[in-house]
């Protein structure tokens, strides 16, 4: 049984690729197992990223039927916030940011990734990502136990 986790936006995007089953069969299998065991869970930041992406597609004239198919799935995804337990997610984000900045040389994490991993840690979950750079970066600042890198190949 895998540890409870949050899926980040690039993982969801890769999972939803039209050819994902052919190109990334192991990834699809892993994520389906995660959904079976723990449901489909993301950070509010990821939810925000996906929702604004869909809205952009809508404004570009993407068909409503296509959007509904994706929204149907996203409607069932559980989003975890930063505000629970007195804003614990924000406190974790503060600490990660400060610790990363205190390194020599300082390590910079994008705000989206920072808040996403902070959400996972605040909810005692692991962040599942297909972004190797992010996984390496988080391992480099001592957060290896909170990240699960899912290789595409």
């Amino acid at each position, binding site marked *: 049984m895998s540890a409870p986790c949050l899926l980040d*936006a690039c993982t969801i995007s890769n999972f*939803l690729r039209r050819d994902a089953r052919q190109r990334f069969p192991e990834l699809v299998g892993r994520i389906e197992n995660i959904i*079976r065991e723990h*449901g489909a869970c993301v950070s509010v930041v990821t939810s925000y990223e996906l929702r604004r*992406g869909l809205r952009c597609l809508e404004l570009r004239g993407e068909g*409503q*039927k296509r959007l*509904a*198919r994706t929204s149907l799935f996203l409607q069932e995804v559980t989003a975890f916030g930063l505000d629970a337990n007195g804003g614990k997610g924000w406190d974790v984000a503060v600490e990660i940011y400060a610790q990363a900045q205190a390194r020599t040389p300082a390590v910079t994490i*994008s705000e989206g990734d920072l808040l996403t991993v902070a959400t996972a840690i605040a909810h005692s979950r692991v962040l599942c990502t297909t972004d190797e750079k992010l996984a390496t970066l988080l391992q480099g600042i001592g957060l290896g136990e909170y990240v699960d890198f899912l290789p595409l190949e």
Partner: protein
Amino acid sequence: MFASLSKKRIEAVPILLADLERLVARLPAKQRAALIWSPEAVRKALLQLHREPLSRMAVAEVGLEVFRSFHRCWPLLMEFLRAPEVLRAELSAAWQEKVLLLRSAVVDPAVADAAEWAFRSLSAFFDFFLSVAANEVMEGLPAFDERELERTLTEDGPGCIFRTQVLLMAILEGAAGKMDSGRAEELAVMAFMEASSALNALAREGIRLDPFRGETSEQRTRRILRYSEFARGSLSDEALEVLASARVHGLR
């Protein structure tokens, strides 16, 4: 709009035109004659959605006619709400029939799921509404304010749930007839979008409704995995690029 109420448990199902007609038909002739409503006017309004360009405004206009008629039937609905045991079994069966009819109106299985999702959301909403407002509902006929209804039908928030009801009624009204399945799918997709907006708006108020309340975790997993397959087939590489470019990098 809703039915089946008991002291122990409240269950609600969206009431459709055929349900109202069936209820009216059971009234004694004198009561029936006193009821001023026109199912044909409602049907005619709903049929507009089968052929005219679809927009929120068009749905709102049809909704005005639908809810005006429903309001006239309010005393009748209250009567049946007071004696729910008479209708409980029938409505329960009707609920399943409606879901099946709704699904049969569209060809695409993803859109059928979206339509069912919308229908269950509407049902969950009425269930919730009755659980918190049952006493007020039973107390009597709320004043009918056409301008207020018109405003509600065109706005976000509560307006979404009313439009969901109208859109689902339009599909069901056409499902047994000759409605084009393409139009049925358009109506179903719009109903899903409206229903998901309504549930998201309620969630922001701290009210989380589960359209699939009572399903087992296995059923839920199967459903989510089925939805993920639908989503997987729907986005082009270009669309996925747009999603990727919507990632949050900095907050400045």
